[in-house]
C-alpha cells in the first residue's frame, strides 16, 4: 500500500475547507491592499487552490517540503500556516510569519515544511533538488516539491535542476502550475510546444498533464510521484492545468484577456466546482455555507487581530544576517 494513498471521499470536505480558507485569505489581502494597509506588489493565487490543497494533502508535511514562488500564499496556507501569521506578515507586523522580513513574496515557514517563496521563479527548483539530495544521505524519506508557474519552465535553473535531479534519481516533484499566463504574456507565445510536461522525457523522467482544478486528482498524482520518489526512482514532472481568476498582481487590469475568457474560467473555478460535487453527494448546501461562513469569520478575526498588532521593530532589522 503506498504511503500516501488518496484519502476517501469524506476528505473532500477537508480539501474544500482548505481551498475556501485560501480564497478567503486572498480576498482579505485584496481588501487590505486596496485600503493601503498592505503595500507593495501582491500576487494572488485565486483560482489555483485545488493544486495547493491536493498536493499538500498528498505530502507528509513537514517531513516533506515545498518550494513555491511568489504566488505562494496558497501553498503557505495549505501547509498549515495559520492565516493570522500570513496576514500579519503582509501587514508588516512583528507578529508576522517572518517578522516583516518576508512580506507577500518571501513567506518562509520551515517548521511547516514551507521552505520559502521566491521571486526568481525558477530558483527554487535547484534548491528543492538540494533538499532531496540531503534525503539521499539522511534516510529521512523526505520528498521535496518544487512548484512554479508555466513561465518559470523557461528559466535555465529549472532545466539544470531537472537534469541534476534526474541523473541522481533525487526524490523531487517538479510541479508546474500552468495557468496559461507568464505574468502578462501567454505561455503559447513563449514556447513552441505548449504541452510543457513533454519536456520530462528529455530528462529521462515521467511527465504528466493533469486537471489542476480537481483537488483529488492533484492529490493522487502527487501521492504517486511522492511514492515513486521515495522508492528511489527519481523525479517526476507534473503539469497541473489551472487558471488565475485574478490578475498577475493586484491592480493588473488584465487588458490581455480575451472577451469572455474570465466568464469561462469562473464557471470552471475549483471551489464552485467542488461545491457542486459535494452537493451531488451527501453534503447539504447549508453545511457548506456554514463551513464558508465559519472560515470567513476566522479570517476576518485574524485580519483584525493582525491589524491591531505592533509594527515590525526597526531595532531588530540588522539581526539574522549572520550566525
Amino acid at each position, binding site marked *: 500500500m503506498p504511503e500516501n494513498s488518496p484519502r476517501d471521499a469524506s476528505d473532500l470536505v477537508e480539501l474544500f475547507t482548505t481551498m475556501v480558507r485560501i480564497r478567503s485569505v486572498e480576498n482579505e489581502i485584496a481588501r487590505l491592499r486596496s485600503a493601503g494597509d498592505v503595500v507593495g506588489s501582491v500576487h494572488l493565487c485565486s483560482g489555483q487552490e485545488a493544486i495547493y490543497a491536493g498536493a499538500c494533502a498528498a505530502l507528509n508535511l513537514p517531513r516533506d517540503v515545498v518550494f513555491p514562488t511568489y504566488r505562494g500564499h496558497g501553498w503557505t496556507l495549505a501547509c498549515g500556516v495559520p492565516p493570522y501569521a500570513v496576514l500579519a506578515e503582509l501587514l508588516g507586523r512583528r507578529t508576522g510569519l517572518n517578522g516583516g522580513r518576508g512580506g507577500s513574496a518571501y513567506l*518562509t515557514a520551515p517548521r511547516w515544511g514551507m521552505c520559502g517563496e521566491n521571486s526568481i521563479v525558477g*530558483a527554487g527548483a535547484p*534548491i528543492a533538488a538540494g533538499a532531496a*539530495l*540531503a*534525503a539521499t*544521505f539522511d534516510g529521512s524519506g523526505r520528498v521535496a516539491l518544487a512548484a512554479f508557474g508555466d513561465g518559470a519552465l523557461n528559466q535555465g535553473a529549472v532545466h539544470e535542476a531537472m537534469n541534476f535531479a534526474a541523473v541522481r534519481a533525487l526524490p523531487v516533484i517538479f510541479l508546474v502550475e500552468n495557468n496559461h499566463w507568464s505574468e502578462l504574456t501567454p505561455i503559447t507565445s513563449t514556447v513552441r510546444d505548449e504541452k510543457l510536461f513533454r519536456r520530462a522525457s528529455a530528462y529521462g523522467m515521467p511527465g504528466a498533464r493533469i486537471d489542476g482544478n480537481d483537488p483529488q486528482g492533484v492529490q493522487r498524482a502527487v501521492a504517486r510521484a511522492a511514492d515513486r520518489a521515495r522508492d528511489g526512482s527519481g523525479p517526476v514532472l507534473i503539469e497541473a492545468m489551472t487558471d488565475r481568476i485574478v490578475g498577475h498582481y493586484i491592480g493588473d487590469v488584465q487588458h490581455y484577456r480575451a472577451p469572455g475568457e474570465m466568464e469561462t474560467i469562473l464557471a470552471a473555478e475549483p471551489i464552485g466546482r467542488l461545491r457542486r460535487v459535494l452537493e451531488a453527494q451527501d453534503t447539504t448546501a447549508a453545511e457548506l455555507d456554514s463551513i464558508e461562513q465559519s472560515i470567513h469569520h476566522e479570517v476576518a478575526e485574524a485580519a483584525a487581530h493582525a491589524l491591531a498588532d505592533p509594527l515590525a521593530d526597526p531595532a531588530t532589522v540588522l539581526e539574522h544576517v549572520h550566525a
Partner: protein
Amino acid sequence: MPEQTLKKMSYAEAVNAALRRALETRPEVILFGEDVGVPGGVFGVTKGLHNRFGDRVFDTPISESAILGGAIGSAMFGMRPIAEIMWADFFLVALDQIVNQAANVRYVSRGEATAPITVRTQQGSGPGACAQHSQSLEALFAHIPGIRVCMPATHQDAYDLLLSAIWCDDPVIVIENRNLYHASKREIVIDGNVEPIGRSAVRRPGTDITVVTWGSMQFQALEAAEHLAEDGIDAEVIDARWIRPLDMDAVLRSIERTGRLAVVHEAHTIGGVGAEIVSAVVESGIALRAAPVRVGTPAVRIPAAPTLAEAVIPSVTEIADAIVKTCRS
C-alpha cells in the same frame, strides 16, 4: 587541543587535506562539483577523495545553478555541502543562487532555516589565461550581506581558512589561486584547531607604511617590501585573508603606527575592496601623513596575450613605486 602534525605539501595538497579532514570528522559533509569526483578535479585538488569517501564526493553536470542550489537545499536540511565552482568567472552564470538565495535564507527566516554552504573556487590571472578565466571577483561577492569571503594565499591558509569556512554557519566563498596550487611544497600544520573567521595576518612587520593586500598579489607586495627595505623604507604587509568580514581593526591599529596606507590587489580598483579599505580608514579619522594609494588593475578587460596581461596586472616595480611615492610625499 587536537594533536598537530607537520607535513610538507603543496597548496593543492593542503586544500585536499582540509577537505579530507572535514569529510572524516563531519559525516554531514558532502563535496561536489564539475569533475571533482572520479577525475579528482581539473587541477587535481580533490584527488583520491571519491575513492576514500564514495558517493559523498561526486561529479555534477556542468550546471552551476544546480550545484549551488543543490548545496543550499541540502544545507537547509542538515548537510554541510562543499561545492566547487571551477573558475570564479563561472559563478556569474549562477549568481542568483548566491546573491538572491543563499544570502537570504537565514535573514528572511530569522534563523529558522540556514544555508551553511562552502563554495570553493579559484581565480586570478596566470600565463595563458583568457578573458573568462582570469577575473578577480572578490568585491562582487563581498558586497552581499550574508556572504563570507576569504582568499587563502599561503599553504597554511589554504588548509586553515577552508576548514574555518566549512565550520562556519554562514555561506562562505573560498577563493583559491590556481597559480599557487602546484608552485611549491611547504611544511604546514594539519589537525590543529579550527580558527574563527575574519582574522588578518601580518606577513611582514614594519613601521613606515601599512600595505594591505590579499590573494596571490601579496607575494609581489612582499617582494616590493623587501626591495624597499634596502632603500630604508620599512613596510608592514598585512594579508587581509578575509575579504568579508574584513579585519579593519588590525588595519587601523597598524595605520595608527605607520600613518601611511597602500592597498595592493589584483582586482580592478574601480568599485573594489581597496576603495572600501581606504574609505574605512578615512572614516576612522586617523590622521594620515600622506594620501593613501591603491594599486590594482585598471578598468580594462583582462587580455589573453601575456605581454598585454602583464601590462595591466600590478607588478613588483609598480607596487614599489607607489609605496615610495606615498612614503616620500
